[in-house]
């Protein structure tokens, strides 16, 4: 294994670790802010208890999101120096802006919220949590602007052996970036709402703190229903944008080898990458792929065989991940419709099996967000900047296999220990319910 492959694995692993914690931060932050708002408006003590209970889980999760993110920022320099030199003129700006606009706000007001219960007015305390929720989503915007530029480079010229920015607004208002951003944060909202519904279901099954968890479940279900529909709709637009700017990724998502007019989607499909074709294609839905990709049933969709073989991504992981993501997205809509209906009619306690389903569904949005990133990032290969710079040419020149192996090993051990500790704490405090001190 060479330093490029190891650096890719290292970056992929740290990014996926980071993205275990980030989506929950995005979604749960907003939910906690909503809960505190309800307390501020109604002065009902149960909302205060609720805010403190979910706020504690938010904080435990938040730390890991932050620390795993710091590592990512520095890995561009440590492992991907050639990339950093080539694109730093464009890529560095959103990262620096993210820190200036979002990180300071997020970390400052998290501290204020955590230590401010007795020190600041209830109104300022409420503003603090909204600032935390807002800024963690703002941080996602800037990081996804940077990421979207790697997917769909815009607003630059090639000069002095690097990509130089010529239009900041083209970078910031790139449609790809905004689709990716809205798709990602709504996915985070789904994660947050399933987290709240799952843990509430656990307590409702045990009939503990019923009032608090019924209300929590209802808030989660309402938020989750809206988010599940949005994430699906935006995902559809996002896929159409991918078809437009990254035809190899789209073809890999559907394992489409030959260029077709009025391309169908097969319900059952087994790719065979070595032969550059599909082993099994069954139950076609005519024209659906053309319709979804170009919003035109007769559109022509380019197949992978129309590209040079060294320009196409690994097909099987992208194809499988995409199917899992879409399947789960559909399931989330069904589950949240039911959840919202039962919660609204106050029938949750009668549907114990449904509560069990919601409890065990808690990890599913996590799976969906992880496979979503596999589609986005593996689907972009072999390019680190689509069409511009290959991943192989982006790695630091001076790195030795030993260096990367050593740091990768330490990361795995360290991150695993931290993740175990984190999950243990989350489970412990989630099961315990609201504390006496809340």
């Amino acid at each position, binding site marked *: 294994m060479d330093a490029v492959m190891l650096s890719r694995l290292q970056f992929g692993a740290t990014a996926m670790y980071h993205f275990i914690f980030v989506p929950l931060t995005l979604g749960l932050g907003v939910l906690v802010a909503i809960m505190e708002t309800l307390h501020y408006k109604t002065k009902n003590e149960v909302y205060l208890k609720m805010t403190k209970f979910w706020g504690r889980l938010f904080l435990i999760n938040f730390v890991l999101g*932050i620390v795993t993110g710091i*590592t990512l920022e520095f890995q561009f320099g440590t492992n991907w120096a050639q990339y950093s030199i080539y694109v*730093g003129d464009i890529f560095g700006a959103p990262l620096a802006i993210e820190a*200036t606009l979002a990180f300071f706000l997020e970390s400052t007001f998290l501290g204020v919220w955590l*230590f401010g219960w007795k020190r600041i007015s209830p109104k300022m305390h409420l503003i603090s949590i909204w600032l935390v929720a807002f800024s963690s989503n703002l941080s996602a915007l800037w990081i996804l602007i940077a990421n979207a530029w790697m997917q769909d480079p815009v607003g630059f010229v090639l*000069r002095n052996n690097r990509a130089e*920015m010529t239009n900041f607004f083209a970078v910031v208002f790139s449609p790809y970036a905004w689709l990716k951003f809205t798709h990602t944060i709504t996915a985070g909202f789904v994660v947050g709402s399933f987290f709240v519904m799952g843990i509430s279901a656990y307590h409702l099954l045990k009939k503990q703190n019923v009032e608090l968890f019924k209300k929590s479940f209802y808030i989660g279900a309402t938020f989750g229903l809206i988010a599940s529909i949005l994430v699906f709709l935006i995902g559809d637009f996002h896929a159409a944008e991918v078809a437009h700017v990254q035809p190899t990724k789209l073809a890999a998502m559907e394992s489409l080898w030959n260029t077709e007019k009025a391309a169908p989607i097969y319900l059952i499909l087994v790719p065979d990458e070595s032969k550059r074709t599909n082993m099994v294609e069954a139950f076609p839905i005519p024209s659906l792929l053309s319709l979804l990709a170009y919003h035109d049933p007769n559109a022509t969709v380019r197949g992978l065989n129309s590209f040079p073989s060294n320009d196409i991504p690994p097909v099987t992981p992208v194809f499988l991940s995409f199917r899992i993501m879409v399947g789960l997205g559909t399931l989330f809509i069904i589950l949240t419709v039911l959840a919202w209906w039962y919660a609204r009619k106050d029938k949750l306690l009668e549907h114990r099996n449904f509560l069990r389903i919601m409890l065990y569904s808690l990890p599913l949005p996590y799976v969906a967000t992880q496979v979503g990133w596999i589609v986005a990032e593996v689907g972009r290969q072999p390019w680190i900047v689509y069409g511009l710079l290959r991943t192989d040419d982006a790695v630091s*020149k001076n790195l030795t296999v030993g260096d990367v192996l050593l740091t990768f090993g330490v990361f795995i051990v360290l991150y695993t220990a931290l993740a175990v500790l984190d999950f243990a*704490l989350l489970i412990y405090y989630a099961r315990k319910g609201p504390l006496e001190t809340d």
Partner: protein
Amino acid sequence: MVLNILWFIIWGLLWAMYFALDGFDLGIGILFPFFAKTDQDKKTMLESIGPVWDANEVWLITAGGATFAAFPTTYAYMFSFLYLPLMLILYGLIIRAVCLEFRYKVNNPTIISLLEIGFFLGSLLPALLLGVAFGNIFQGLPIDQNGYHGNLLTLLNPFGLITGILFVVAFLLHGSLWLSFRTEGDINVRAKSLAKKLWFITLFFAVLFLVSAYFVTNLYSNYFSIPILLVVPILCVLGLLGAGIFINSSEILAFLSSAICIIFLTFTGVGGLYPNLIPSSINNAFSLSAFNSSSSQYTLAVMTIVVIIFVPIVLFYKFWTYKTFSYKIKEGEGEGY
């Protein structure tokens, strides 16, 4: 060209802010296992930095992000050349954050002691290694057309270590002054008497640093050619003297003096480096400077506008936070984290 100079100054300022702010909470982390006698002391120490340490660390992220945006070539070489020390700093910061946050959330005594060790090491490693890294940058790194020729061991040279130790003791002093400012009663008295001892040690290493810098670095050449710049190292020394003078009379002035000392210590180094961010110790032609490693004028202009609009806002709410959380923690009532 003006923008390059401006961004060189911003680059120095971001590091200076990071050291002056995260410096005291790193210092408290290093003190933690030795200073706290009781669980109550530990809670008080953690509460003293609780509301602010996370935002303090953001200066480091901003310094990294700004280096990437304004001087991408320096960012790429600085972080890939100093690969292992940087990774060690990162491990330290990761462990530290988690140990700090989880210390009062677990009940298992074994895990608690592991978390306390982690908090200590995670504070010590970044302080020491950032000092070592900057000590080496001040001397210049062995860079030529084939890249970098050093490794972790070559970084641990005498001047690198002196700078590393200076960072650690200066942060310890800074941390104990912060602790005395935030506390009252017994812990306040102990923090002050510790600060007095640390003051002499810091003075010793500061003098050692400044004298040995004369022999092993080119830091002074800018100062000798433009004597007015000597104001910078003089302010650093005055800051340190101020910290010593104010220890008994005013806790806040002593702390601020020590912050001024750290800020101007950083600027003494950065001012001596100019126009280089990373000088080559082999041949100055391979040095990474504010001019040959920078982004385009367009990107620098965009970033300048962002800084002009948003940094004052950041400074405003950060100032408000410090004001809100500058109350004295009552004896026996520290709440931990």
